[in-house]
């Protein structure tokens, strides 16, 4: 069997929250928080993986760790068989050529003093690729994302949100990466533009065999484009599996809560709403037992004390819950 494009195992990303001196004074033996914990995922070529979760659940941290913008503490990230953990910033350069990232803020991720042409051709300059006609490349990439050629002379502040997002996509595509990490690719766009972006991503996946890791809190996006998905909470995957299977047979109450919070355009549709009380707990003081028990409507005594083992619910579909929802529930 060949290596998957991306294989992550037991990944842990920690951040220091106190200076060493402060920690010593407070007698705090562990002045860190785990922003990503025990995460494992496999992504095959030409597939899309969806990451969902509330703000602060560690989705973006996980993505940034994959390309070395946040240092991973332990675990393993293998991209095309190469181990990425333990590399220095410089050793990520070739990796960053093959994994492109689209950031959350479409206009904010474009260097404000550069024209669209310079922005799109930036990857060529960074990686010292000189035997290309930059003008032709600009035209090719702009066409790929359905933007007119005269936009090449514009500056980021002159672009609309949708245009800026597409420039971001064009830039990500410049060096034919094998994986694109898309952080909230539809945030801040109106529905029609969202649709265009998603269709564009679907086309790239199909035609060019590009893989996607999509980070979003919009379940419709995940359902629309991703083959596999994971639900993140406090840095862990609470439930993961093939998208269709997770949607059809969700086992974790949190997945259900996320889905039921999502509006359904059909007013007659029957809905079982699961409402969550309270806020996401602090990473500094993780809850005991099942970390979701503070907000879970079905929590029982056992949940407060015992951390749930990963359980299987079909092919490659796993979840962390003592009292999963019945398999045939919505």
């Amino acid at each position, binding site marked *: 069997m060949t290596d998957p494009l991306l294989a992550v195992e037991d990944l842990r990303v920690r951040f220091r929250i106190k200076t060493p001196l402060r920690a010593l004074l407070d007698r705090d033996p562990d002045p860190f928080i785990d922003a990503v914990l025990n995460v494992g995922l496999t992504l095959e070529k030409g597939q899309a993986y969806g990451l969902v979760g509330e703000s602060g659940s560690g989705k973006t941290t996980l993505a940034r760790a994959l390309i070395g*913008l946040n240092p991973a503490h332990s675990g393993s990230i293998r991209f095309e068989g190469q181990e990425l953990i333990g590399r220095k910033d*410089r050793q990520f350069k070739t990796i960053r050529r093959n994994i492109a990232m689209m*950031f959350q803020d479409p206009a904010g991720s474009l260097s*404000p003093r550069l024209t669209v042409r310079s922005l799109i051709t*930036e990857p060529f300059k960074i990686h010292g690729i000189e035997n290309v006609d930059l003008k032709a490349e600009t035209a090719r990439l702009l066409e790929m994302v359905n933007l007119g050629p005269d936009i090449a002379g514009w500056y980021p502040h002159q672009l609309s949100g949708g245009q800026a997002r597409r420039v971001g996509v064009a830039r990500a595509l410049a060096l034919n990466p094998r994986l694109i990490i898309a952080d909230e690719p539809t945030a801040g766009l109106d529905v029609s533009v969202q649709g265009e972006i998603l269709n564009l991503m679907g086309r790239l996946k199909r035609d060019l065999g590009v893989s996607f890791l999509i980070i979003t809190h919009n379940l419709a996006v995940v359902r629309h484009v991703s083959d596999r998905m994971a639900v993140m909470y406090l840095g862990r995957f609470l439930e993961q599996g093939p998208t269709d299977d997770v949607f059809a047979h969700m086992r974790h109450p949190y997945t259900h809560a996320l889905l039921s919070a999502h509006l359904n355009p059909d007013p007659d549709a029957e809905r079982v709403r699961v409402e969550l009380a309270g806020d996401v707990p602090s990473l500094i003081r993780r809850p005991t037992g099942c970390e979701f028990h503070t907000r879970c409507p079905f929590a029982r005594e056992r949940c407060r004390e015992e951390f749930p083992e990963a359980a299987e619910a079909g092919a490659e579909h796993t979840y962390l819950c003592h009292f999963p929802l019945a398999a045939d529930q919505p």
Partner: protein
Amino acid sequence: MSSGNRQTGKWASVVYSLRLLVRDPMGLAGLILVTLMVGTAVFAPYLAPRDPFALDVMNRLAPPSQDHLMGTDQMGRDTFSRVVMGARIALKVALTAISLTLLGGLVLGLAAGYGPKWLDNFLLLVFDTLRSFPTIMFALAVVAVVGPSLNTVILVIVVTTVPVYGRIIRTQTQAIRYNEFIQAERAMGAGIFRILGVHIMPNIIGPLLIVASMDIPVVVTIEAGLSFLGLGVRPPTPSWGSILNDGYSFIRNTPWIVIAGGVPLILTTLGFTFLGESLRDIFDPKLRKDI
């Protein structure tokens, strides 16, 4: 954004800014004074009617006349010619000192703002230490060691002003470094020099140039002050400061020398300050009147 703005290139915006500058009375005054000063400095040898070093002992401390537009000093040298040549010294010191300061401030400020925390702390300590020397005290110390000269003046100015620029640049760099476009550049594999040179520097250099243009008069006065105290350029080189110093000694005999040395100093200071303030208003969109 208006669609009319979309097609404008870099040159069009430069022309537009110039037009705004000329329309602002303060900016126009500044532009004229600065042009006058720079023009005088550049064409000094052609403008000076006499040799600024030629002694004429019979004609000491003469009042203004057709022969000597601003009179003569205690050795009978033509004050007007000395003032014109003094513009060269003033401009030379100002431009060299300010460019070296900008360069030094950029290197240290970018290092402090983008580098690791310990480097930031160390550089801030250096900046604060340098800032805590009074300029004159520092100048006296340096002169005592290496002797007075034009280069000493420049050195003193650069060392005492680099911390100011360094701090501004450090703060600006820190404000930009966590922006998403810097993260995006890193994610594409851009190295530190590309990020600093192509993505951070262009975003901080504009306001900085304006601060620099407003600092030129300060530098001119420091040079004049040091020369006045005898710590700057060596006689007989004409500098506005040394002309003032000469005039000061003979102010009971004739006021003309002090006036001749002081007026260009005042006009230069005003010119650069006006220009700097007007430019700042134009480039700071929040202060701009036309939008």
